[in-house]
């Protein structure tokens, strides 16, 4: 989510590189975020290669901001 919040959209391979997650792990997490309506997924072919791009939805952006606020509040309480 942190990677996606700072870009317009990002490809699966880019997200994998930035998070260091395995393909399977990342797919599962992205699937859950998509189910929750936090991500919009676009699948297309670029030069005959399948490319999947992810973009944060408004709902996802709001959820991420709320998450950061809660984390911040927890850290301040300590």
């Amino acid at each position, binding site marked *: 989510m*942190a*990677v996606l*919040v*700072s*870009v*317009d*959209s*990002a*490809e699966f*391979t*880019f*997200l994998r*590189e*930035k*998070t*260091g*997650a*395995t393909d399977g*792990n*990342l797919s599962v*997490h992205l699937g859950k975020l998509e189910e929750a309506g936090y991500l919009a997924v676009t699948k297309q072919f670029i030069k005959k290669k399948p490319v999947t791009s992810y973009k944060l939805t408004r709902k996802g952006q709001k959820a991420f901001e709320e998450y*950061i606020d809660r*984390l*911040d509040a*927890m*850290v301040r309480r*300590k």
Partner: protein
Amino acid sequence: MAPTTASSTPSRPEEELQFIRKILDESRARFAQSGEPYIVWGLIIAIGMGVTYLSLILQRDLYTAYVWFALILFGWGSMIYFYRKRRKEEAGSKSIIDKIDTAVWTACGGSIGLLVIMFMLSDAINGYDPNLPNLAAINPLFICFLSAMIIGIAFFISGTVNQIPWLRNTAFAWWASSVTMMVFSSSIHVIGLYALMLILFQVVPGIILQRRYRRIVAASSTEA
């Protein structure tokens, strides 16, 4: 950046916040505004204008056309190099700010290029047949004030979308110089002023931007 797996991502709130901050800093570094294009184009056009100005002042042919041709060729070659370098760095992600920035400066360069072609063509046509209506019934030196105005617009938009106030405010210097050039448009010294403007308000901002860019990149590498 040390690879982490989803199973080993930070579990404590402080670690999570730090991790997120690191990711955001890396993004900031990736999409930070580089000063290289500003420096390259600023120098290229300043040199071209400088040579043109000197040839007019000294009343000598300094092979101005060849100089311009070589400079523009070098300029576009550099732009292709910077574009490829940027694409490699950003492979797999897109930023709306980057898109807007690229579009603004492409439009700016294209518009100024068109102005130059129009004036050159009109000069060629009128040289061929002076009875034809003068396409540059406008003073050719008007190209300076028109392009200064266009450059001002590009700086304003670029500074605004990148949230760099001093870069945005450079636009006002360009617009002020544009008005000056319009007022003194009959004087060839306008060309010299334009060259000076490019050094002061394009190359220098480019150097400042490039230092800022290196600081941001260095800061994100240290945190990684």
